[in-house]
């Protein structure tokens, strides 16, 4: 955590730079704050290094004569204290110039075209059901200026990075009784899986006609970023065919007939892969960009990913840049071989981890292999339920939070019931589910009434029975659970006396990085 430090030449004014990344680069962002002895004077969110340097300089020059060299030196020392290696010359350059780097870079890129990648696919031992997406970027020249050269390579990386989609396309086609062929297309949202790494996808087709539809074909376009770990189609015994397209794996289901109003549901269990971008500087004017996708497999309590690169060009490469975007659910424990400079592991705030491997002079057929050992990034489950009565008035708000315990062998669940405007004296029951092998080892308050039973599906059902809090007041229960597998990320059920939930009026599910206060 960054701390404020005095501006050189002043005992009353302080600056703080809170970077959102651990890596010094022109694209680094940060919050810059300015203090006096009484506290915060002002602060600014800076989107890149140029804004950071300018903001520090502006704050500095409100109280002291402007000295670019001193400001640049101060920033380098400040960053060094928080273990970020800065570049004094670059900072000075940014402070002194107004050059529009981005505009210049656009002019250097002449052309980008798709290229065939079959040879790479054979050489790289890529996972089954994936492809390599390849592009060739032609540039006018590689700038000699190191700063511009790095910026250009970063821009090519960014421009050609595989963009992870948030929805999955599904196409369907079928025949009507008059032999007419009808088709439809839709985007399906991804859902939460049983564990943190899983993603679920449901692809549904309902026959809305008053007649049977025949020769039905449903095609789900699964991006190569996802590994298909499992799939099923209701109770039908149909095996789909797969077809590798340029950017997606098509899963094709052929169903002979669907009756009127009948609904066919295909469910997928998907797992995220490492999204790798490779930049091969083949010649001074030609840069090859490859997007590959690497499986992450469970091993004991950790996860492993093995990646391989081989130079299949018939000439040595000047330089090779590889960026591995680790899915946000994961944290890196170690890499093998160990990540040594100039390898950079960037942990950007709210964005996840990027690992950048940089190698010079890669010989013909030289192979680079890396193994990542990963575990889960700290998670928080937040379930909130708003309870309405028959007159559509909110009577209760109930929340559930799950947080992993520090020792990693269990977790804490918090339940909070807030009475918004209910006069009821009926007991409230919150019914929730735990994996069968998980055990409640503590509760607060200790006298809380919790019932445990096993349901037909073999899950452990816990029910907290409690008197309703007074209007505008809350009641909280904290439960400590022990178990060596992840918790279930599911919503609880609510009963007030003998009344149960009737309709779900609204429902929303999201998974994303957030800055939150621990509950």
């Amino acid at each position: 955590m960054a701390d404020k430090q005095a501006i050189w030449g002043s005992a009353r004014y302080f600056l703080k730079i809170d970077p959102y990344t651990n890596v010094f680069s022109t694209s680094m962002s940060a919050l810059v704050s300015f203090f006096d002895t009484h506290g915060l004077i002002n602060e600014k969110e800076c989107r890149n290094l140029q804004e950071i340097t300018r903001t520090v300089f502006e704050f500095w020059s409100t109280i002291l004569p402007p000295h670019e060299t001193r400001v640049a030196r101060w920033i380098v020392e400040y960053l060094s204290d928080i273990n970020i290696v800065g570049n004094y010359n670059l900072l000075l350059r940014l402070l002194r110039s107004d050059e529009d780097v981005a505009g210049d870079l656009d002019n250097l890129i002449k052309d980008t075209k798709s290229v065939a990648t079959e040879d790479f696919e054979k050489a790289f031992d890529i996972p089954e059901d994936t492809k390599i997406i390849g592009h060739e970027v032609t540039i006018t020249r590689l700038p000699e200026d190191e700063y511009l050269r790095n910026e250009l390579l970063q821009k090519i990386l960014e421009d050609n990075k595989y963009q992870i989609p948030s929805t999955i396309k599904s196409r369907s086609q079928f025949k009507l009784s008059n032999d007419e062929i009808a088709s439809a297309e839709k985007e399906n949202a991804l859902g939460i899986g049983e564990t943190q790494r899983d993603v679920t996808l449901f692809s549904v087709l309902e026959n809305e006609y008053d007649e049977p539809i025949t020769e039905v074909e449903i095609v789900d376009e699964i991006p190569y970023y996802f590994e298909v770990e499992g799939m099923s189609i209701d109770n039908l015994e149909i095996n789909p065919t797969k077809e590798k397209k340029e950017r997606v794996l098509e899963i094709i289901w052929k169903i002979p007939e669907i009756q009127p109003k009948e609904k066919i549901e295909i469910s997928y269990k998907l797992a995220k892969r490492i999204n790798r971008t490779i930049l091969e500087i083949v010649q001074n004017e030609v840069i090859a960009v490859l997007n590959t996708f690497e499986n992450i497999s469970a091993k004991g309590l950790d996860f492993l990913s093995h990646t391989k690169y081989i130079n299949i060009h018939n000439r040595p490469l000047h330089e090779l840049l590889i960026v591995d975007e680790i899915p946000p659910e994961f944290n890196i424990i170690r890499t093998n071989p160990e990540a040594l400079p100039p390898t950079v592991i960037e942990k950007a705030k709210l964005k996840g981890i990027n690992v950048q491997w940089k190698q010079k002079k890669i010989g013909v057929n030289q192979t680079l292999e890396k193994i990542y050992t990963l575990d889960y990034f700290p998670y928080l489950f937040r379930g909130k339920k708003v309870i309405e009565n028959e007159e559509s008035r909110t009577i209760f708000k109930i929340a559930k939070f799950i947080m992993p315990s520090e020792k990693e062998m269990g977790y804490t669940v918090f339940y909070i019931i807030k009475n918004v405007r209910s006069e009821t004296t009926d007991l409230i029951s919150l019914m929730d589910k735990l994996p069968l092998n998980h055990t409640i080892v503590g509760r607060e308050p200790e006298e809380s009434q919790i019932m445990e039973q096993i349901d037909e599906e073999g899950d452990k059902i816990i029910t907290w029975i409690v008197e309703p809090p007074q209007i505008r007041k809350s009641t909280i229960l904290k439960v400590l659970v022990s178990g060596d597998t992840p918790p279930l990320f599911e919503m609880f059920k609510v009963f007030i006396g003998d009344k149960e939930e009737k309709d779900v009026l609204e429902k929303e599910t999201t998974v994303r990085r957030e800055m939150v206060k621990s509950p």
Partner: protein
Amino acid sequence: MNGEETVQSVIREAKDILAKQSAEDFLSYVESKTSELERSDQFLESIILWHFVSETMENFEEDDYLAYAYSKLISRYMLVDNLSKAEEIYKESEEKNLSSFHLDTVRTIFAGRQQIKGNREIIKIHRMDVFGDLELIPASPNTYFENVSLIRRYIHNNLPEGTFSIVILNHKNNTEEELEISTETLSEYEVISMSEKVRMN
């Protein structure tokens, strides 16, 4: 060239830039020249040039350049310890209703030194609970602030950890502003979030 000649030549060149190019180029030219002057301790020359900028920008449609010139003037007068002149410019900037990131920063520094009584008063403080609902908590009356930065500082120093919605009455133009401030220490999590609205039987 002596100081006065330098100032005159910068003014001539700056006017030329404003006529032929843009206000942004004009400001960046003056900024670079005043920085040079200040590096050799010629603060009075720098002040003359910032007065020239404020007069030139007086009738300009965009307030930002004028606010910037005022922020420079207040901070430069503070640097040369001419606090009465800094206060005069400070009050002028208030009368003109100028506001910008830099001007607010500089005015906060000045108000901190001079204990100036401001126009803004906190009239309501709501605290946010885990459901995002706001609950009114007692606000201390008769505490006046010059600007939003000072209010934020007050909240950070005087309220317990939490997320607050602050309603401020600006006595000068009798308007109310609302400000959301969090004083909590936040950590990064991968958040799996579900929300539902249900109706009971």
